[in-house]
């Protein structure tokens, strides 16, 4: 019985990253490693339908790729020998057969670190990560980031060239260097997750498949780095936010704000996992790092069975710590919202007004959105409407735009638009659930 193509693709998904990572270790060239891996995949597609999937598919693929590498090296050797007029092997050809058999066990991590190399822009890292680790096609990555496909293709090609030209070492670093490199990985993962959680552009509000990919990589890292507090902190943050994915989208695909969500739709398995990861992070490192703090804020929401039971003073305290740590105006904005729920809309508005001239927030739609919401809660409808309209003009996601315009219109109505008083929106009073934005710069 033949083996379905989908089965081979499933094996590829399981094995490809470690395979490429292992080949990179041997041939010291990312593009070549990818090519060799691709050739192994083609060979699998050719043979496995009739032979069936081998018992150790990873080993089969690696052996096949190795054989290709050896063949290519021999051919180059011969050509070099012919050119030199001798049949002596040229120096410097790695002993491939020997190198392959060292399984350092870190090949997957190797590839993650390469894909997230700090030399590359964050966007390039994200694209390369989704390609090499997520196995997404260029078209899928382009769709995920709403960029034209050729742009993504170029971005990936350029990234590989940058790494090659800089001759980045492919060894997995250790100690302090490894910790530093990890933080650039975490940044990429969170970028990908956030893009799936609150899509900044386009017509879909969430892209769960991006969240799943980021979560998977986060889980892999947490397993690999049990002692790194912020790895667990980020994982906790992602698990807790992902727990709300089903509740964030309404029946027609519209955004539902955190405080309006049907909490029975929160995924308790992910809440449980998120709180467990948070506990690990908190136990590992005091004072808490930025991802752990954001996770703690998310955890405070997750623990409240209803919006009314939210421990706002605790959330304010966490935002205090986060603001001190990051100095981020976005965090200050989120903190203002938490303050408004803990201590009243007027107190929140004071803090928001202090951010009015903050250059980093100049085109950030959530600033006027929050201001509008607070004004509404204070009964200042005319001003609220103008702010919400301004927010809508700055919002890039179609759903967010529509939501804000709707709320702006409702300011004129006889009845309140349902966001006043205690029933107010998300901590950022806007569709993008707060904690995720806290330490990220405003979207560009």
């Amino acid at each position, binding site marked *: 019985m033949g083996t379905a193509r989908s*089965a081979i693709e499933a094996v590829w*998904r*399981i094995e490809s990253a470690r395979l490429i990572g292992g080949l990179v270790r041997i041939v010291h060239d990312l593009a070549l490693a990818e090519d060799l891996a691709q050739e192994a995949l083609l060979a699998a597609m050719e043979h496995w339908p009739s032979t069936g999937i081998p018992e150790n598919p990873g080993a089969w693929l690696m052996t096949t790729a190795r054989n290709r590498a050896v063949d290519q090296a021999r051919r180059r050797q011969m050509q070099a020998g012919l050119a030199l007029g001798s049949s002596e092997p040229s120096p410097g050809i790695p002993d491939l057969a020997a190198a392959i058999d060292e399984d350092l066990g870190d090949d997957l991590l190797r590839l993650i670190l390469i894909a997230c190399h700090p030399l590359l822009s964050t966007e390039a890292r994200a694209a390369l990560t989704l390609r090499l680790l997520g196995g997404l096609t260029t078209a899928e990555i382009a769709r995920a980031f709403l960029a034209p496909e050729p742009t993504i293709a170029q971005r990936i090609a350029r990234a590989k060239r940058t790494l090659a030209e800089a001759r980045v070492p492919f060894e997995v670093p250790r100690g302090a260097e490894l910790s530093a490199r990890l933080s650039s990985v975490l940044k990429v993962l969170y970028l990908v997750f956030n893009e799936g959680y609150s899509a900044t552009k386009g*017509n879909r509000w969430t892209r769960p498949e991006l969240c799943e990919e980021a979560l998977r990589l986060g889980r892999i890292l947490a397993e690999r780095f049990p002692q790194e507090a912020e790895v667990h902190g980020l994982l906790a943050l992602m698990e807790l936010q992902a727990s709300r994915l*089903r509740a964030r989208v309404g029946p027609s695909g519209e955004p539902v704000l955190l405080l309006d969500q049907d909490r029975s739709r929160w995924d308790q398995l992910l809440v449980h996992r998120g709180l467990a990861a948070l506990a690990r992070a908190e136990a590992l490192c005091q004072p808490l790092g930025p991802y752990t703090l954001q996770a703690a804020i998310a955890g405070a929401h997750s623990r409240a069975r209803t919006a009314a039971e939210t421990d706002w003073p605790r959330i304010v305290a966490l935002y205090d710590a986060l603001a001190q740590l990051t100095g981020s105006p976005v965090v200050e904005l989120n903190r203002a919202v938490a303050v408004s729920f803990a201590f009243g809309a007027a107190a929140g508005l004071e803090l928001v007004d202090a951010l009015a001239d903050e250059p980093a927030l100049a085109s950030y739609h959530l600033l006027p959105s929050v201001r509008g919401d607070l004004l509404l809660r204070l009964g200042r409808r005319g001003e609220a409407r103008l702010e919400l309209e301004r927010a809508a003009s700055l919002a890039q996601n*179609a759903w967010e735009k529509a939501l804000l315009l709707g709320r702006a219109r409702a300011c004129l109505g006889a009845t309140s638009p349902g966001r006043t008083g205690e029933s107010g929106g998300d901590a950022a009073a806007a569709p993008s659930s707060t904690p995720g934005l806290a330490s990220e710069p405003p979207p560009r």
Partner: protein
Amino acid sequence: MRVMVFVPGDQNSEAGKMPSQELIAKMMKFNEELVKAGVMLAGDGLTPTSKARRVRFSGSHRAVIDGPFAESKEIVAGYWIWQVQSIDEAVEWLKRAPFDDGIEVTIRPVFEPEDFGRELTPELRQKEARLRAEVERRSKP
């Protein structure tokens, strides 16, 4: 997507007999691989049905039945919840489990909420198009 994987029990599991050390070690290693790959979400072994209870529902009547439940073939001895890209991926992972002796382990995809990007019905598509048009109209000065 998520899948649940159900491992059937047998007379041994029902008798509370522990599997061999070797099998336990292999199973632990398998579970480790699943965790390391970011696939494992949850998993547990279930106690023999001698410790189980059943509730039968009939109208407003509730009957409680104590285990053990003799039909071993249908008894679940363990479960996993995995995060995978496709059921094919789940199959490939499951093939790596150290089971033997003709045991059949079932993979059940969990219902996922609609992914509006991929499964927009024609009605929702129209609605989205109208929404987009409306937003366009309103954004014009």
